[in-house]
């Protein structure tokens, strides 16, 4: 099931291979990662499985429970690709957990409209210290109609362009500085029998990352903003067609690995293609760094992995510093929870979420948490170079666009992903894509 993109949202390092299996077994993926007691007043909290996030989330819960023997949090870990539908059906069934893990944006908005989550605006007002320790940019997706409905948490995950340095050196290639360079590299690598770009196309949101960057680089952030605000015919705005035409040229030139439509990102096969040297480049979220370090043998350790921001398109309007991805993950509180549970959840937000201990764990795992306190810790990390790069991109971007499928309502997101899949299959062209998508505006 290609539920949208869960793994990319949370630096999931799906454990592949025996080395990581030990770690997995240790973090209790062998069953629900339940921790804490089951007393009636305890709050429930669902989060995602997978190293390293699962263990870090669990540790945070354990720390909280140790300090609060009277109001515990009961955590349960869920497999990523099923979670998104699961949480929806659970909320629909009136069985939502107290703390709802999510990605903010359109999904959160649908909960807000159904009256299923708490308004946290006043709480943040009373707890300015909590608000001030987080990245400013992380509040965008948590804010619906001017009110805050979720606590930004965990890590920031921009999408970046990874490349295999070894493959580049062997073929005398340089990292692309513009879109034209990209097209030239495609010709070069195809000639050598290496796939230019790895892509887990069955997951659909992976294809979307390409569209997000081209829209931004050519038309600037306002291009998608129009769609987000539901302006009629927003997809026909100038720039959209050019972006789609360029993307189509890349597909036509076999820019993506053969068989990309049958590769899922959840299986990390797309990353395997990059570190095994079968593909030269990959546009992907920064959370893949951790899993490539885990699964790719010495690939990351030996410095064979290169990374950069997506290059500009000549004549485009978008600022080259712009990025897209996930400004954070978001914890909402179910409005159906009891008063005690809500109190426990808020206490958890205040004391445990992104505490110094948790921030350190995220940094150690090769990720940048959305807390300002993380910056000082990055330098000490073994992945300092990469983490500083992520920190700089995230904090210096003129615009940090949220992933489209997260920003839109679930209905519009599904239509978008569907059309993107067809576009990459070449069953529809730019014009048809634009007219199809204009038809979904406001849904």
């Amino acid at each position: 099931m290609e539920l949208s993109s869960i793994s990319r949202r949370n630096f999931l390092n799906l454990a592949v291979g025996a080395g990581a299996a030990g770690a997995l077994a240790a973090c209790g993926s062998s069953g629900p990662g339940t921790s804490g007691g089951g007393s009636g007043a305890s709050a429930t909290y669902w989060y995602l499985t997978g190293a390293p996030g699962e263990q870090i989330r669990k540790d945070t819960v354990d720390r909280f429970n140790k300090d609060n023997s009277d109001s515990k949090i009961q955590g349960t870990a869920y497999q990523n690709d099923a979670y998104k539908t699961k949480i929806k059906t659970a909320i629909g069934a009136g069985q939502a957990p107290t703390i709802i893990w999510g990605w903010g944006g359109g999904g959160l908005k649908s909960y807000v409209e159904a009256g299923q989550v708490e308004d946290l605006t006043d709480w943040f007002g009373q707890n300015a210290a909590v608000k001030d320790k987080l990245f400013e940019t992380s509040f965008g997706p948590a804010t619906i109609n001017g009110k805050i409905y979720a606590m930004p948490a965990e890590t920031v995950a921009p999408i970046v362009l990874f490349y295999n340095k070894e493959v580049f050196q062997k073929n005398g290639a340089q990292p692309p500085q513009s879109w034209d360079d990209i097209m030239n590299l495609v010709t070069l690598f195809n000639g050598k029998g290496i796939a230019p770009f790895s892509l887990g196309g069955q997951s659909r949101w992976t294809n979307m990352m390409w569209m997000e960057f081209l829209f931004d680089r050519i038309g600037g952030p306002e291009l998608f903003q129009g769609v987000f605000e539901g302006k009629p015919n927003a997809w026909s705005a100038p720039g959209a067609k050019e972006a789609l035409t360029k993307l189509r040229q890349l597909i036509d030139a076999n820019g993506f690995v053969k068989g990309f439509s049958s590769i899922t990102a959840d299986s990390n096969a797309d990353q395997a293609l990059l570190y095994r040297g079968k593909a030269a480049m990959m546009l992907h979220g920064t959370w893949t760094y951790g899993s490539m370090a885990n699964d790719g043998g010495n690939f990351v350790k030996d410095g064979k992995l290169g990374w950069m921001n997506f290059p500009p398109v000549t004549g485009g309007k978008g600022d080259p510093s712009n990025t897209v991805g996930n400004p954070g993950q978001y914890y909402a509180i179910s409005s159906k929870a009891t008063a005690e549970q809500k109190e426990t959840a808020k206490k958890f937000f205040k004391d445990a979420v992104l505490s110094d201990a948790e921030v350190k764990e995220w940094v150690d795992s090769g990720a940048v948490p959305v807390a300002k306190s993380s910056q000082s810790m990055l330098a000490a990390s073994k992945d300092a170079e990469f983490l500083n790069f992520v920190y700089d991109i995230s904090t210096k971007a003129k615009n940090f666009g949220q992933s489209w499928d997260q920003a839109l309502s679930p209905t519009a997101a599904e239509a978008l992903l569907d059309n993107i899949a067809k576009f990459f299959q070449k069953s529809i062209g730019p014009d048809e894509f634009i007219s199809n998508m204009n038809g979904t505006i406001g849904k």
Partner: protein
Amino acid sequence: MTTVAPPPLRVDRPTSGGGRSGGVAWMAVPALIMFLIFGVVPLLGVLALSFAQWDGIGEIKPAGLDAWQSVLSDPGLPHALWVTFVIMALSWLFQTPLSLLIGVFLAGHERYREWLAVLYFIPLLLSSAALAITFKALLDPNFGLGSGLGVDFLNQDWLGESKLAVGVVVFVVSWQFIPFHSLIYQGGVRQIPRAMYEAAQIDGAGRMRQFFSITLPQLKYTIITSSTLMVVGSLTFFDLIFVLTAGGPGDATRVLALDMYQRGFMAGLMGPASVIAVILVLVGLGLALGLRRLGGRGDESQLEGA
């Protein structure tokens, strides 16, 4: 509905149950209740929901014909119908002749054929999820069978090209079910009276003649039974396709059932999803009734009065 009326041999004295059939009616009640609650009520429910608006989370609101309008004007519907039909037709066309021939072959009584039948059954034991996962791994363009064997022909983009993906679905379905249908045909063949073949041999009919003039006509109802199972069964290829291609590439393998799931549980459009579900039921009923007509008899289309 041909019902077997019992010959009234004698005047009945009411038994403890209160008459010759009065005492049995209650026995049908538990099954009826279960089926009403989880079969009939949902059927009415899906009809009702098709006139409603529900995102799966909030309130269910009446919405008149909105869902119907949006689905019927959506090019996705004819496409899903078409894909459903193509997969159904191809899997029938592929499976029936093969199953029939293999079934005739298995009907022989040599020991080794029995062992064949034993091995044949194994694919049926695998769940669709397991099967889909297996074939997904086998056909992986980069890490699958082809690259392992170094046979480039096997390195097709099996699940990434629309036509190939449909072909793979049909093949996996056949892989799983041909053995089952072969066994059905084997049973059918074994019920054909020997004497018919012996008479034909005396008349000097060759093997081909015998097959076409005895075996095939005698298997008419077996063919209808097997085809009904295949055709109605093909409407339920959800698990397999869901795990194998998730309806992709694009929407190349998005059959009705998958379309419904995607609209309902992923896009939060329970109304339109219910419309698709209603269409799915109508298609299923239509097919089943059509096949029954072919059989030319009522509910006993299965009963060969041998």
